[in-house]
């Protein structure tokens, strides 16, 4: 009888324990874009699964559809994602429309300090209204638009001599935007190993955000500002300033004189393809792709090197990257917050960088060995020191699409002048802010 009682108690204990386990274990879904760092995150998250007992599922959407798909999901109050690594520009809409959970109390209770993360990333990925201590995301993936080039071509004596003869200076990484264009024009339609190659691949995509991200990489070094006074929405004279006009004309000249034929609707994928196929000498793209590019067996390793977006009137790079947020419609917010807590851990952040993700944690970035940890690590740090982002307003999609249209009309379709394009852009944006009740 005693044995029977013992067996019953044991069985009940096992059943209770397994019930408790199954009640605590959640199936969490994390949504992000489908690209190289996402694969690294899957690998990293295995550690979280082992520690917490939660199961992680991932929903990765190709970049061209990422914003459409995810914003539809949020706007419809969908429960697909418990965690979302959303683009930096969504933070305003995420906060004001109630899509993201405000994380201040959670950070306070768990001892997570935003001072432990790079200031630029906290400002860009986490705060709304901008710069205020209201946090809706934890910086997850630092990123900026940078450049990479065929180092093996740059080091060839015949090419170096030809460049010296053509320009009077040595072929090296460009120190300004104008040098960048000069190098790209030098390579344009040049015969290398019996093959015609082209200057550079730049962003010209019309549908989502491509051409805006490319053009702002020229606008920011020229000193582009969105407003005369921050927060005032007075754009006339800032957005269409003489410097902005010059930068836009520069980008158009770049497109017309130094890119491969048919390069009218190109973004990240096309840039990578052009470079990997040996079609271009240089290419712009997000730092997120650089680990993969360096590892490429054909054009990586000794054949590739990287540089930060060159300055002109000032240093300036277009900000990429994202913060990780808890979706307000999720039924598993506690487990999602557990993930954020785990992800904020310095050891996890160090492993994140090791696997190919760009950590924004100071313990990783300020490590003395960080600059030498990858050939592009130093450039990444430099870029993050001068990043600028697009509007992060709740109406960002309207603002972005207006800019996409005006830029593509001028640069690719060759309609009107740079001044007209920017003047029209000011009109479009003014209308948007009037509708928003901010003007």
């Amino acid at each position: 009888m005693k044995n029977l009682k013992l067996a019953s108690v044991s069985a009940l204990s096992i059943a209770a324990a397994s019930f408790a386990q199954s009640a605590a274990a959640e199936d969490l879904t994390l949504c992000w874009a489908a690209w190289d760092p996402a694969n690294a995150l899957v690998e990293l998250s295995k550690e979280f699964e082992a520690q917490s007992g939660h199961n992680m599922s991932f929903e990765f959407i190709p970049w061209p559809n990422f914003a459409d798909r995810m914003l539809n999901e949020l706007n419809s109050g969908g429960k697909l994602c418990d965690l979302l690594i959303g683009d930096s520009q969504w933070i305003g809409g995420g906060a004001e429309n109630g899509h993201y959970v405000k994380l201040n109390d959670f950070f306070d209770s768990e001892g997570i300090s935003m001072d432990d993360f790079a200031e630029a990333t906290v400002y860009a990925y986490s705060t709304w209204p901008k710069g205020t201590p209201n946090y809706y995301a934890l910086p997850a993936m630092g990123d900026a638009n940078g450049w990479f080039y065929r180092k093996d071509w740059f080091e060839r004596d015949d090419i170096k001599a030809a460049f010296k003869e053509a320009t009077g200076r040595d072929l090296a990484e460009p120190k300004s935007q104008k040098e960048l264009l000069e190098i790209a024009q030098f390579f344009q339609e040049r015969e290398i190993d019996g093959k015609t190659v082209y200057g550079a691949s730049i962003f010209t995509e019309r549908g989502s955000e491509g051409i805006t991200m490319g053009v702002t990489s020229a606008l920011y070094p020229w000193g582009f500002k969105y407003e005369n006074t921050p927060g005032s929405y007075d754009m006339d004279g800032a957005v269409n300033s003489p410097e902005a006009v010059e930068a836009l004309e520069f980008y158009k000249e770049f497109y017309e004189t130094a890119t491969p034929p048919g390069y009218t609707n190109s973004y990240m994928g096309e840039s990578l393809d052009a470079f990997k196929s040996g079609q271009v000498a240089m290419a712009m793209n997000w730092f997120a792709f650089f680990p993969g590019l360096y590892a490429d067996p054909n054009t990586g390793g000794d054949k590739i090197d990287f540089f930060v977006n060159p300055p002109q009137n000032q240093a300036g790079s277009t900000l990429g990257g994202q913060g990780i947020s808890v979706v307000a419609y999720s039924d598993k917010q506690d487990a999602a917050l557990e993930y954020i807590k785990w992800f904020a851990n310095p050891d996890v952040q160090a492993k994140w960088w090791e696997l190919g993700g760009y950590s924004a944690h100071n313990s990783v970035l300020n490590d003395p060995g960080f600059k030498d940890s990858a050939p592009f690590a130093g450039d990444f740090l430099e870029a993050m020191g001068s990043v600028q982002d697009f509007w992060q307003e709740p109406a960002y999609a309207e603002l972005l699409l207006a800019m996409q249209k005006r830029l593509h009309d001028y640069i690719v379709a060759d309609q009107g002048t740079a001044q007209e394009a920017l003047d029209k852009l000011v009109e479009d944006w003014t209308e948007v802010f009037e509708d928003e009740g901010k003007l």
Partner: protein
Amino acid sequence: MSKTPITRAAAATPVRVARKVRGLSDRAIAWIFVGPTIFLLLAINIFPLIWTIRLSFTNFKANRLNREPEWVGLRNYERILTDSDIWLNMQATAHFLFWTIFFQVLIGFTLAYLINKKFKGNDLWTTIIVLPMMLSPAVVGNFWKFLYQPQIGLFNYIVAFFTGKDPSSFEMLGSVDLAPWSIVIVDTWMWTPFVMLICLAGLRSIPDYIYEAAEVDRASKLRQFFTITIPMVLPFLMLAVLFRGIENFKMFDLVVQLTGGGPGSTTELTSINLKREAFEKWRTGYASAYAIILFVTVFGLASIYVKALNKVKER
């Protein structure tokens, strides 16, 4: 009394049900049958239309549900009708509509006329010709995007072969002048078979004895073509034009795959622009007004056209 299906069904009806139905008039029974359909029609067609009309007078945004929409009267309509960019989209749509229909009718009728002649392999050729319309527009768009590629595209090489031009010297999808024609070419390639099939049906519906009578009257082949073939196929042709016109007015997938509306806004048809306003910018009120304007335009044009079609049929 022989057992018909009706008597069998009546016998099988349970007595309680039969008693209930027996008391109903024919009109009431008709309503029972038609009712669900009318309800569905009201729920998924009429109600959304009325709701859209209502939204078109507001500044409602479907992604800002926490913001109370304001009544803006006719402001959305005024903005749309005075927006020069939208008129450019309308022009791009009109260009696409006119030329696709023109080429599809011309080539479709010619093909139907040839296929209608009896020759060896007639059926095989018909099958081959109709293949493009069996493909998905997304597949066709991607497929032609490669064909139009300036460096590796077959289309550019064929043009280069005949003209002696450098294949990479022109960009079908990237040039403001050529992009509108590139989408016309693809749509014509894809949908000419559809027009051909309708024309073929028209040609095969003409009784042989009419031609035989014309032969007896010593009418030339050309005269037979213009006085018999064309008038008798005309209603079919007009029907094909109506179908293609309605389809191409809402053309979206093929053009998005090919050009995405670019370069600039050169091939941004109204449907693409409307989608951007409604589901990318989320200007729901504005997009509703836009949709109503397009609806009225298509409805008005289609009504006029159908009247003309009926007149042709009556002749």
